């Protein structure tokens, strides 16, 4: 028992939780932005892969790290645009289009990677982002190593949460996004463009999702390999519901999941000798499902989510 308590007392546990949560924060913020405007983006899993590959490839080809981040965001925006065109003006099924984008983006990323590196057996590494050394804060006892020795992308993720919350609740644009996800007719009757808003949020949201993928190759693993996204995109879709489409709660959900995951890794080393490791691997997902059941039953869905809008039809 005291061993388990010790896990929570260690700074490295919290640092790991935040590190694991970072790609999820990007993903859930991106998904939330899309869904707030009424478009479910199941392209997320593929967009993660595309972001991971594009960012890594740019750096490997000689771009700077921030150049890589930009390329990843552009790649995400590109696949977001495909999804947006299919689902917003054309009004196709958001599920089908999203899964199509995931399959397309994933395969295309693998294809490009294989074409560029036909013979490598172990994935080449890049010089990735290093933890920031923030004066004073990083040197605090316990809090320093737990919270403030992260790479710049983690801080970018946290900044995006705050920025998204501000835009959503404090600006005219945010009001319009909230309204278009609830009742597109309200937006049109006030002289705004439903298609413009929805396409804009899907492209922007997808670009942010792709940063989650870029974090994996440019901050966590320093390399790109097949299957590395490993369902993180789908987790973000669930976390969005868990968060009731609110940025603050989205951050909380991502951190909670990160903590579960960091905890199960440490628990394996404690009691792994007599319980198979797969049980621990399952744990974060089981706990997410349990949390979803508790929270999401009361979820306040954007009313127009999944409903395409056609002008002049009501």
């Amino acid at each position: 028992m005291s061993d388990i308590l010790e896990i929570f007392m260690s700074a490295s546990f919290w640092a790991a939780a935040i590190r694991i949560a970072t790609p999820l924060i990007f993903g859930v913020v991106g998904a939330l932005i899309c869904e707030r405007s009424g478009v479910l983006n199941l392209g997320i899993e593929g967009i993660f892969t595309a972001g991971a590959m594009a960012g890594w490839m740019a750096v490997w080809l000689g771009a700077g790290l921030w150049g890589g981040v930009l390329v990843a965001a552009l790649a995400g925006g590109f696949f977001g645009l495909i999804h947006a065109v299919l689902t917003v003006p054309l009004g196709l099924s958001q599920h089908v289009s999203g899964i199509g984008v995931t399959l397309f983006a994933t395969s295309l990323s693998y294809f490009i990677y294989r074409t560029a590196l036909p013979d490598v057996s172990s994935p080449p590494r890049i010089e990735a982002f290093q933890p920031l050394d923030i004066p004073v804060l990083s040197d605090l006892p316990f809090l320093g190593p737990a919270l403030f020795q992260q790479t710049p992308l983690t801080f970018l993720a946290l900044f995006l949460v705050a920025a998204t919350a501000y835009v959503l609740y404090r600006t005219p644009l945010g009001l319009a996004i909230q309204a278009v996800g609830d009742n597109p007719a309200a937006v049109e009757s006030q002289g705004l463009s439903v298609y413009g808003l929805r396409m804009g949020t899907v492209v922007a949201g997808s670009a942010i999702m792709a940063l989650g993928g870029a974090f994996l190759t440019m901050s966590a693993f320093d390399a790109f390999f097949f299957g590395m996204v490993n369902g993180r995109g789908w987790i973000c879709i669930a976390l969005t519901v868990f968060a009731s489409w609110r940025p603050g709660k989205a951050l909380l959900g991502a951190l909670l999941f990160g903590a579960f995951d960091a905890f199960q890794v440490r628990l394996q080393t404690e009691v792994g000798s007599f319980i198979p490791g797969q049980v621990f691997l399952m744990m974060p997902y089981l706990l997410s499902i349990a949390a979803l059941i508790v929270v999401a039953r009361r979820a306040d869905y954007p009313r127009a989510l999944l409903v395409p809008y056609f002008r002049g039809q009501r």
Partner: protein
Amino acid sequence: MALPAKDAPVLLRLDGITKRFGALTANDAVCLDLKQGEILALLGENGAGKTTLMNILFGHYVADEGSVLVSRGDGDLSPLEPGSPHAALEAGVGMVHQHFTLAENLSVLDNILLGTEKLSTLKSRRAPARRKLEDLMTRSGLAVSLDMRVSQLSVGEKQRVEILKALYRNAKVLVLDEPTAVLTPQESDTLFAILKKLADAGLGIIFISHKLAEVMAASHRIAVLRGGAKVADLPTSECDQRQLAELMVGHEVSETVRGTGAPGDTLFILTGVSAGESRESIRDVNLDLRSGEILGIAGVSGNGQTMLARVISGLETPFAGSMRLGERTLTQANARTMIDAGLARIPEDRHRDGIVGAMTVSENLAIEAIRKPDCQRFGLLRFAAMREKARAMIDAYDIRCQGEDSPARLLSGGNIQKIVLARTLETEPKVVLAAQPSRGLDVGATSEVYRRLLAARARGAGVLLISEDLDELMRLSDRIAVIHRGHLSDAEPTETLDRGTLGLRMAGHTMEAAE
């Protein structure tokens, strides 16, 4: 009603508006002027093209021919960019749609603010907006709490928000599409008082309606549309209701006369029935229906009528109370046992619950009788017999269709209702449940529905008529009960009731308070 000055400037002109949808001409060269300070009623039946015309004015549709001209303040009229709600708003045209265009997840204030600020602005300026709105509310009498979420508002309050939205944008012309459809008579009176005040302050107002009484009471001028064309444009003082009805329909209108009935024994009893949980629920409902009478249930939409109809139809099991039809107790009934006990159901949403759109007319006509020997033998359907029977019913009920094998979804609303009537009344049921039977039907189909219901009453059936149309209830019912927030009042003879009393009860006032 005080007329606007003769030389008041024209605010808005529709010039030869024509709009076609395929073969249908929804608007046929319509011309219309609206002056400052004037309330214009646009009168017409369903499908006459009223809403289409207003949607063109507001930029939801683009007209095939003709143009919309608006005053730009200096008295000159200039054309409005077609197909752009944004341009209409900029030019001072505000529209209150029949189905409200509000985001329910936002506050009243945010809904009004929506779209009034540039999207690139970094901060919504809510404080000055609040001041302007508070000023507008005191001057116009439109009171609503600015910080409430729209989802918590009543229908009347939502409508006020819609009007405030237009006023906040300094609208000069206000268009309201069927504004009283969702209101009680008293709420309607309040609305019209506010509209009059706004007109006196210099707004031009157009309201769409098919209710003759309110058009006569609340407008300066009346334009009548029929089949997409304007057939009359008269000062209200020169009109009377009969003349308007004929203009609207295009031929003489014969009034349906109820005549005295001969109510017999009690047929159908509900005792203390409660069902449902949320808003659409009923509580402790008592009701007794006699043979040979029509019992009307009045109420504003959303007060439990739908649940009451579902319970009686056997689609919802009440958690308390009991139902009896004749000798049978039917508290745990399902749809099949209710039909077998002799109940005919005319559902509220005939497209969704009345027919299966993809199936043929003859299949739809047989659908409640498929277990009877004239429709099936040894578990196999007898299509030939079903078709033959369908042909007879198509003749008897004048169902206009491409034959008994055409899919039911291709029929018009009126003909779909005739399928429902034919199917349910053909079996000579003891009790007829008619939920909103004339909703959305034109005058011809409506009078056919009335005739069939009165015929059922004449042969001794009990008819339960659930309706939101007070005129319809007063005309057809022998007795009327009022449903409000799931509670049903005692039924009283129609002769002892008037519209005012019913209206107050629909708004929740008890009998004592009404006197």
